[in-house]
């Protein structure tokens, strides 16, 4: 690694000022676990890193008046994992966190950093999309909100401007919705997912299912065709199978060290079906 300037602003406003919309060598750093990997590999050589660790306003977990759970962007993943509020609000997030990377990374990596990194192999984005979550973003012109579903522009790319920061993640109240996330790895149990599948149902009703795949695709993506296949509300095994088949037809899987595109399509077929079964509480769905 090469030397750089490390700025440690104490406020959000100051942090935003230290960023530069034109300069890709200046970036914010939160926990830094992902950024350190990029710097060590030499794919990112910063001139300035703007540390958000001293920005106090970014780390609370609180329930909003509308019933949504607001999670400060600097919340470490392990804190979210241990949060009773999160477990009560959407236990699928808690469950997902338990197999996300490893304990040490979860102790340091933050919710905001996890989302801003836009690595398609991250576990939370598909889950958050299925839950209908959005992020709050601050920039020189003030605040805006972006649905997590719209946050990712592509492989390691978000729609964020270089002088914008994610300040919070907001997960809406789930009412009677039920969700499940299945992580499929192909090279080792403990690996980045080769495929992540998150689904969310309205109670037992699959008619309003949200089905999201990640990792096997360039970015996390909702599968409208698979969702449509369930719209008539049938949720017997044949219906779930149809949804899996539709998902496999629809998902644009990519080939890499974790498997060929054709094989990953088969994984999508199987795991979408199984995720739906899991959300419906059918354990022996294999």
């Amino acid at each position, binding site marked *: 690694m090469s030397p750089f*300037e*490390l700025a440690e602003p104490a406020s959000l406003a100051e942090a935003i000022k230290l960023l530069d919309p034109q300069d890709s060598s200046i970036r914010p750093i939160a926990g830094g*676990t992902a950024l350190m990997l990029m710097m060590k590999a030499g794919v990112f050589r910063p001139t300035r890193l703007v540390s958000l660790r001293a920005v106090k306003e970014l780390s609370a977990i609180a329930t909003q008046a509308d019933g949504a759970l607001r999670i400060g962007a600097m919340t470490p993943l392990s804190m979210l994992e241990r949060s009773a509020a999160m477990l009560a609000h959407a236990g699928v997030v808690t469950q997902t966190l338990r197999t996300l990377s490893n304990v040490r990374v979860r102790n340091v990596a933050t919710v905001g950093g996890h989302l801003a990194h836009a690595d398609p192999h991250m576990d939370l984005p598909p889950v958050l999309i299925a839950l209908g979550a959005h992020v709050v973003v601050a920039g020189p012109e003030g605040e805006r909100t972006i649905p997590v579903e719209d946050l990712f522009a592509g492989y390691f790319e978000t729609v964020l401007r270089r002088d914008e920061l994610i300040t919070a993640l907001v997960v809406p109240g789930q009412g009677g919705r039920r969700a499940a996330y299945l992580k499929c790895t192909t090279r080792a149990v403990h690996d980045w997912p080769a495929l992540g599948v998150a689904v969310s149902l309205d109670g037992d009703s699959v008619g309003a299912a949200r089905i999201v795949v990640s990792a096997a695709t360039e970015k996390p993506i909702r599968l409208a065709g698979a969702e449509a296949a369930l719209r008539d509300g049938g949720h017997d095994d044949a219906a779930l199978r149809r949804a899996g088949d539709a998902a496999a037809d629809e998902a644009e899987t990519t080939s890499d060290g974790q498997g060929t595109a054709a094989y990953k399509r088969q994984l999508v077929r199987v795991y979408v079906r199984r995720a739906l079964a899991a959300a419906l509480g059918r354990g022996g769905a294999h």
Partner: protein
Amino acid sequence: MKRTIHFTLNGAPVEADIAPHWNLVELLQREFDLFGARESCAQGLCGCCTVLVNGTAVSGCLFLAAFADGAEVVTIEHLAGGKLDPVQEAFLECGAFQCGFCTPGFVLMARELLRAHPDPDDDEIRHYLAGNLCRCAAYPEIVEAVKLAARNMRKGA
């Protein structure tokens, strides 16, 4: 671009002049001759570089040294102040290592595990320690050692 940081290292206040691009492992080795945390995979995957910062385990190889400023840092060398702690004792008893390069990381993570879950089952142990790699694969012995340590700690508590 050197800067001076102040932190608590193994119970004692210290200061160090560091460069912004140093990681925590380098800081411990270069400035304090502490070699128990080792950079191996350099990607936070093997756990050889485990260090406790403000009471939680971090991968020292992915942790900027500058972030230690003001923090409380504990390394393997500090456990139980001279006497072996129950986890170390159990690792010895069960022969839960071979080459020893990954062992400090496993010991620190096992202590963290037992702090959070004093009576872990096999599955909890395997999941918690899945982010630590042992190429000699003394894994069965490690699981055994963690369970032994848990028993001994509960007895001692």
